[in-house]
């Protein structure tokens, strides 16, 4: 299972970026191998529809879980229809949010955040 975390940098030690659509990278954790990989977020530089582009990229990568700070209404709709579960991450290194997710400690993100606004963490 692949778990994507919105991040401000690459690798497991990068800080979580609470903005799904416009984060610079997704750090992807694979629970089969226990390894972290990093992919650039193609939504980061979009004029509009950043969250959609980000969500489409996550779908293509076969991600099953997304950890972020907030997910906008469009991205949320897409992830929900694709059956991807979203969780509210912790500020700090990506590794800590992934660890918390593995221990079932992250609250699910149930509703869409406001467009272009991030949730307070």
């Amino acid at each position: 299972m692949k778990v994507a975390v919105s991040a401000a940098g690459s690798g497991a030690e990068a800080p979580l970026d609470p903005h799904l659509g416009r984060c610079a990278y997704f750090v992807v954790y694979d629970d089969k191998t226990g390894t972290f990989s990093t992919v650039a977020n193609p939504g980061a530089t979009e004029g509009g529809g950043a969250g959609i582009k980000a969500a489409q990229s996550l779908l293509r990568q076969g991600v099953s879980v997304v950890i972020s700070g907030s997910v906008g209404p469009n991205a949320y709709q897409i992830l929900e229809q694709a059956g991807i579960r979203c969780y509210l991450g912790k500020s700090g290194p990506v590794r800590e949010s992934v660890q918390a997710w593995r221990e079932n400690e992250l609250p699910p993100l149930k509703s869409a955040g406001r467009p272009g606004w991030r949730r307070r963490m």
Partner: protein
Amino acid sequence: MIVAVVSGKGGTGKTTVAVNLALSLDREVQLLDCDVEEPNAHLLLRPEISTAEPVYLPVPVFQKGKCTGCGRCVEVCAYNALVLLRDKVLILRELCHGCGGCLYFCPEEALVEGKKVLGTVEQGRIGKIGFACGRLNVGEALAPPVIKALRRGADPALDTIVDCPPGASCPVVQAVRGVDFCLVVTEPTPFGRHDLEVVAEMLRMLKIPCAVIINRADLGDGGVRDFCKEQEIPVLAEIPFKKEIARCFAAGIPFIERFPGWRKKFQELWTAVEERVASNARNCCA
């Protein structure tokens, strides 16, 4: 001749100028209210509306069973309005600009053209003024197609005054497309000057000649006049800051009715614009 009234900054008096100018000419003209997000020229003119036509945006509709999941439609969409899920394409209509790219490039004809109502174009008349106004539906973000439909519906044989939206973004660019001249209404304040600079730059890029009208001219500072001097933009009229003019506007009365002397000033303004357009045409041909 088509003359657009623009401003950059909102609330400087575009509609006041457009309506009073149209009435002062006292002959067959058209007035198009292109501020489709909040049209208000009808409040001053009180025209009789005779037709109201919906404006549609062509949007893609997904046909189940034909899609092979190639993702070409998603790739070509410049607005991220399409998403490929496992077995279908999700269409986010509010992001679609109606370019038709997805329909054109889909190799399986899995997308067909549907339509979505964006707003309305109303047409009517008051005296010698042919009036038209666009209205964008509440909740819609895409003003340019409504403005385009409004401009297209105008009679090309008649002199036309286009009351534009504020700002210098897509709706304004759409509203001023193909006009002969722009009157930029501003006020002599730092805000007025800042937005005048933006609009002047936009008009320079679009190669549309312009002149400035300073409203509430006896207020503020000299920034706007300095800018006009530097840029060699003529100031064709100055409207004073008068409580009675504000009262007229609040009551929905064009101020030339209370200040009949302004009829002549607006007629002279129109003549000055005509002369500039004619002289530009001569210079172009020479």
